[in-house]
């Protein structure tokens, strides 16, 4: 009985690394064309919304408390996209596009974070609106095709 239990434990320990590896792979996840397209669309929308937010803030049409909160929400959403793309498994052209999209997401995240921290800096808001608009277009382009 005791020896049997020991054998079971040894077998379980032998299988454990395999289970952990599979869990790790599952957590990272693969990436297909549709998923990349959906992420690109979401990122493009978040960046475009950030650009609109910065423009409206620059024109004094929204409150700075709102800008701090909403820019941070968008920044966190783009960070999630960036993280998901960096850990996703994809080779060839799809992998290169995922990497470019992750880079765009990281840039958008940084700009949105700057907007959240400086909602009253008009010069920064103007450049942020331009950069986020460009990032929205880049994401759209990357998601649309090679």
């Amino acid at each position, binding site marked *: 009985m005791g020896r049997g239990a020991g054998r079971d434990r040894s077998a379980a320990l032998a299988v454990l690394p395999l289970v952990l590896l599979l869990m790790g792979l599952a957590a990272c996840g693969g990436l297909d064309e*549709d998923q990349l397209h*959906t992420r690109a*669309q*979401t990122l*493009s*929308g*978040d960046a*475009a*919304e950030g*650009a*609109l*937010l910065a423009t*409206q803030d620059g*024109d*004094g*049409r*929204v*409150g*700075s*408390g*709102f800008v*701090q*909160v*909403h820019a941070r*929400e*968008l920044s966190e*959403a783009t960070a999630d996209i960036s993280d998901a793309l960096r850990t996703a498994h994809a080779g060839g052209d799809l992998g290169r596009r995922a990497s470019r999209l992750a880079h765009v997401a990281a840039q958008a995240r940084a700009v949105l974070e700057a907007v959240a921290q400086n909602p009253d800096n008009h010069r920064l808001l103007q450049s942020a609106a331009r950069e986020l608009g460009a990032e*929205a277009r880049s994401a*759209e382009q990357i998601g649309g095709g090679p």
Partner: protein
Amino acid sequence: MNKLRALALGILSAIGGFVDIGDLVFNSQAGALYGYRLIWAVIVGLVGIMVYAEMCGRVVAVSGRPVSDLVRERLGFGAGLVNLGASQIVNLLTLAAEVGGVAIVLHLLSGLALRPLVLLAALALGLSLWFLPFGILERVYSYLGLALLVFAVAAVNLHPDWGAAGRGAVPSMSGDRPLVYAYFAVGILGATLSPYEVFFYSSGGVEEGWTSRSLGDNRINALLGFGLGGVLSIAIMIVAAEVLLPRGIQPEFLGTAALGPAVALGAAGFYVALIGMLAAVGGAAIEVCLSGAYTVAQFFGWPWGKHEQARDAPRFVIAWAILLGLATLIILTGVNPVQVTEYAVIFSAVALPLTYLPIFIVANDRRYMGQHANGRLANALGWVYLAVILVVAIAAVPLLMLTSGGQG
């Protein structure tokens, strides 16, 4: 003046139910993705809620008893219990979303941390429910919620294509991601026909002491109050179609809805929209909380109502306090209120037949209704809507899964 006062129940039911967090989220998303093409879903839902709210109000005015009380008596304990359980699960999810929504709007207005604001929102709602009489409660939230009319002003100011909006009022399918389109149609119908609205409306009629002399007030409330809610829903969709769609913005957050009035009307539009959202979502929270407590108390035959002193209806008070406490705990776990909203709306769509079929049966029963039982028009519309509700209930969960919650 008395007519205006009598209309408050309809306005609160409509603004709190029609234009709650679910409506703000689904209509903004639908407008941002499909422009005007889903306006028909709001109109179909609007006529449905008008038909069934009128039935509920008529039942109250004639029998002096709320619908859920009669449903239990007419259907028996077992079927009534299933009905109660389903409606309470949906109520709890919806209330959690509304409490989270109130906290989010306060967060957006103040910039303060979200979690303490969840507690503050729950406390403010609890104090409102404890201290304010029903009449004041309904008037404060319904008239402040009228600030949402800023969406209608913004929609007109954005000069939409009224011809395209008119074409959107005609039901159609979309070639562009048809499953996502169907998901949003079901979501809009589910949000519009939320079960808590009719239970609240019916119990509110008892709170206001409706009699058969109130049948006219009931009709005005059902038509004008809910009609106003429908106009606001369409306005939210048009603003999203004009401001968000051309920029490729897909709303994921409640705050996105406030950007439309800011673009159209400037800072004044932005702040009025946020105040309207706060009142509408707060009103919805009050409405769902009371609706849940009403149905439980009526089912078990406990004394109930805001017209009663707390010591005379203690289990009713405990019921709304428990619902509010549980909903607050759900949001304090850190779950995203917008996602809770989407699940609440879809599960409410599943529970629709359990709410609307018993109402239809009771409104047709001449033992309760006498000469005021459903006529031909109410029956024809009632049958049509039961068919619509059945389709929506069957399609809701498969569409949620197939589209990953409208993601595609």
